Each structure stands twice: as C-alpha cells, then as structure tokens.
C-alpha cells in the first residue's frame, strides 16, 4: 500500500506539473477555451495525409459540369488557362526555357487541390462549393492532367493516395543543412 500511494503521489505530482506548465501561470491567460464545434467550423486545412477530409466524393464527369458553370470563365476550357492560371498540361516543360506550371506538371500533393479549391474558389464566391462539388472538381482536374482515370472516384480515402507526377522534384531548403 505504501508503494502504491507513493506511486500515486508521484503520478499526481507529474499531473500537477503538467497542468501548471499548460496554464502558464505567468501569462495573462485571456483566451477562452474553444469548443470542438467551433474548431470544426473553422478547421478547413487538409494536409497530405488527408486528415480532416470531409465525407462525400465525386468523379471527373460530375466535375466537368461544375467546372463549366463556375470555373471556365477564368481558367478556360478544360483548364487551358486564360484569362487566369492554366490548370492543365505542361508536363515535361519544367527544365526547358518556358516552363508551364500546372496542377499536372507541378503540384506535389493532390490534397492541396481540394484544400485550395474549397477555401478560395470560385474567386468571387469563396467557400460556396459543396464538399461533393470540390471532390468532383478535384477529380476533373486530376483526370484532365492524366493523373487519374475518368471513372475514378475521389473521396477522403482515395485522394491522399493519388501520386502526383512532380512529387519527387522538390528539394527542401528548410531545415537548413548543418555545416
């Protein structure tokens, strides 16, 4: 019993120490604890492992219709560009005199397409697309670039597994190499 109570004391002391550290007694502590619902509403970022991807899904065929209605006026037919960024093609041009950087030729992660389209597009109406529309657009753009097949379904399980053609051509400059 003595041994056990000693262990309890040690455990309690550790817990107290952790809490003390977490509460940073010296700080003003003027933040209010955020609820899971509040965080869920704002947490829209999607890292390469796909954590946080919402339910739903889509295919290139569904994405083509959304694209024609909401994207084509700025990005051209089938992502050909003009007046704004070209989204398709350019593979094999990066080492040449006129490199063409598109989703297919340049972007290293497919999750970034979902993240960016959902948070920022269409330019005039950010965060207006449904998750199914964003999945479908992602599928359409990946298919136009030859990265996935026309019938492939893009969803929370399949998107992180998409292998982007230029994935291995980035050299990390951070952290700096030790001298």
């Amino acid at each position, binding site marked *: 019993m003595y041994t056990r109570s000693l262990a309890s004391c040690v455990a309690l002391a550790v817990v107290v120490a952790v809490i003390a550290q977490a509460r940073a007694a010296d700080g*003003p502590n003027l933040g209010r604890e955020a609820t899971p619902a509040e965080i869920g509403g704002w*947490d829209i970022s999607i890292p390469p492992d796909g954590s946080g991807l919402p339910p739903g899904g889509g295919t290139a065929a569904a994405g083509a219709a959304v694209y024609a209605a909401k994207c084509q006026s*700025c990005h051209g037919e089938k992502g050909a560009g003009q007046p*704004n960024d070209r989204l398709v093609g350019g593979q094999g041009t990066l080492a040449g005199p006129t490199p063409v950087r598109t989703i297919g030729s340049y972007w290293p992660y497919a999750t970034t397409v979902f*993240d960016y389209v959902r948070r920022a597009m269409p330019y005039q109406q950010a965060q207006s697309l449904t998750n199914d529309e964003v999945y479908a657009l992602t599928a359409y753009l990946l298919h136009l670039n030859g990265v996935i097949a026309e019938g492939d379904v893009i969803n929370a399980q399949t998107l992180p597994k998409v292998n982007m053609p230029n994935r291995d051509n*980035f050299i990390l*400059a951070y*952290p700096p190499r030790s001298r």
Partner: protein
Amino acid sequence: MPSSSTPSIPPEEVAANGLLHRRIFLTQGVALIGAGGLTVLSAGSAAAADPPDMPPWMRAPGTGMSGYGSPAKYEEKIQRTGIVSQPGTTGSGASRTPLEHLNGVITPSGLHFERHHGGVPDIDPSVHRLLIHGLVKRPLVFTMDALLRYPMVSRIQFIECSGNSRPNLSPTPPAASCGAIHGLVSCSEWTGVPLAILLEEAGSDRGAQWLLAEGADAPAMSRSIPMAKVMDDALLAFYQNGERLRPENGYPVRLFLPGYEGNMSVKWLRRIKVTAVPTMTKDETSKYTDLLASGKSLMFTYPMGVKSVITAPSPGLALKAPGLYEISGLAWSGSGKITKVEVSADGARTWGEAALAEPVLSKALTRFRMAWRWDGGPAVLKSRARDETGALQPTREQLVGDKGTQISYHYNAIQSWGVAPSGEVKNVYA
C-alpha cells in the same frame, strides 16, 4: 596610390570614376553639390519667394489643425507604383513602394508595398477572433481586446515579398524605376505580442513541430511555419509605425516573421493550427517555390537573401549637371545585420566602402551613403552588401548561373544603373 601618376584623380577618391570618401560632405559642405542636384518631380517655381521678396505664405496665418494629417500637396505624386492585379480582379496582385522618392529607412505606412491574394477584407475588430488549436493542450479563442492586453514588444524590421525584383530575371533589363523593380520591400516599426506567449498558454504537445497560419481574407491565405521560427521571434503585430495596422497590412492583427519571405507573415490572422508536419498549402507548393534550371524546385526557401540597391541616382532621377552627388541606397538581409556595403561607379572594376547610416538593425533596411563626383562621362553604378553571417550579395551572372531564370522568387542580385552623359539613368545588365 601615388597621385603623381594619376594627376586627374583627387586624393580623397576611394574608387575610380569619382567615388569619394563621404567626409567630403563634412569638410566642404553642400555648396559643391551639382547645380540643381537630382532632378526629381518639379515642385514648381518658387521664384516669388527668392530673397529679397517676401513669400505669400508669410503674409497671412496658415490653416488650422487637423484630426489626421496628410502629406504636403506638393508630394501628392509620390504614390505606390507598379500596381498590377490578376485579370478580372482588383485585389489579387501587388503594389510597390516608390523607393527612389524616400529617404531614411522607415517606409510610410501609406506607401508600404502590398501583396494580396484576394483583396483587402473589411474586418470589424470587435467580432474578429483568433483561434489557436491542433496539437495543444487547451485550444483557445481570443478577442482582439484580450490580445491587446498582453505585454508587447516593438521592432524595426523589413518585410520583403519573395517575388521582389523578379523583373530583372527577364532576358533584357526592363526600363523601370527602382521602386517598380525592387519596391516589394518596406520597413516599419512593428509592435505586438510574441506568439510564443500565447502558445505557451495553450500548451503545445510534444509532436508540435509546425503551425499553420491562416488569414481571414476571401482566399483564407495560409502558410506552414516551423515551430522553431515561431519560438524564436514570431510576433502577432497590431501596430505599424505607432498606429494600428493599415487594412492592407493586416488589420486588426497579422503574423510577423522577421527576415522570412513576406507572404508567410499572414495578414488578417484568424487561425493557428499547431501540427506535426507542414500542411503543404497552395502558397508553399504551387507558388513560392523556386524552379531551378534542372527542373527541380526549392521548397521552404524562407530567409530573404542579403541585398542592396542604389535608390538615388536611379531611373527617373536624372543627373542635371556634372558635380558632387550623394549616392544613397538601401541594404538588408533576412539573416541579420548588414556589415558592409560597397559601391562602384565603374561597372564593378573598383569598389569603395559606403557609410552605413545609423541605426543598423538586424533584419531591417539599412541606409548607405557615398559621395560621388560625376565628371559628366558614362558610369555604371552598383552596390553590393554583406551581412553578419558573411553572406555576400551575388552578381546577376552568378545568380542566374546557379539557379537559372525561372526561379521567380528570391532574386537578390546586384543592381546596375547605367548613367549616360546626358544624365539619364537606366537599368542595365553590366
């Protein structure tokens, strides 16, 4: 150098083609400055104020006080320059600081460069919130009033867009002003709360190596930031040059990461998510990565390289007549203090050391000055800076040779200004 062999070179010369030690200004005064000096914007004739006449503004009292002052009306042509936006948008682009019309090292807030990815949001500070969550023990929400109660620090530091000076990557030198080429850099006094204080209150978990910073602009611009940088010197900035941030600089709160490429200092900050790995957002993968000639790209190129540029003389500031001039410019490094700036007037054949004007601060713009007697002949003016890490600003040839012409970002090569016998100054690759 024995002056007998070069009788035309005055003994005070520190490098060829007229570069002089700056003490010439102290010993001989401004009377030697070339007639009229640099031709800037004409402020109109002031002949009526010449002695012995009495100027009209002395004949009656002037105007009264004002709630918020403005620049003199004679300076109204001094505006941000090189304003461009993506087709079909008005707020997805940049404007540049007119460096050639400013002096000292502080950029007026109204002339600070802009780079927006979806316009300037109109944020009501009473309803704006900052959320800190992710790998923390206690996710927290802050009001702006709460954040303004935290202890603050002030720092004078520059911010530079990593796309600054990109025009000089083109095959032929663009005919443009100093500000239009290099004006995506500005320097302010920033005041705010070290982000580390808030993270300590939230209690970072052990896996916390990165954080995602996200803005409250329409595209919710976002970047991943290494935790080491955050704990070192990241600031939540609320004040710029003594007043609350301008809307275009992130009102009511922005992240400020000294020395790092500008877009990482996320404006209109609303969310910080502590993570184990980088999120790989659009603006750290498809943009703001530096494409090398090999076809491979550098990613996470954070600190801005050591750099300098002569702001006067420069294109648009023609020399009126031969005589004594001050060559003046700016130097900066994202890795620390500037330790040395050298100036050449003969296309880099000889160099003289410029005077660094106080204050010389880490990761701040530093003003350098050099005396020059222009003999009316052709000249090529250059400056090159060195920082406290020993890094030396590269030539354009070196930079392009190392990285090619498609890097798009982090161009920090030496600028060359060609001076013609007419006094006109042009951008040249020399």
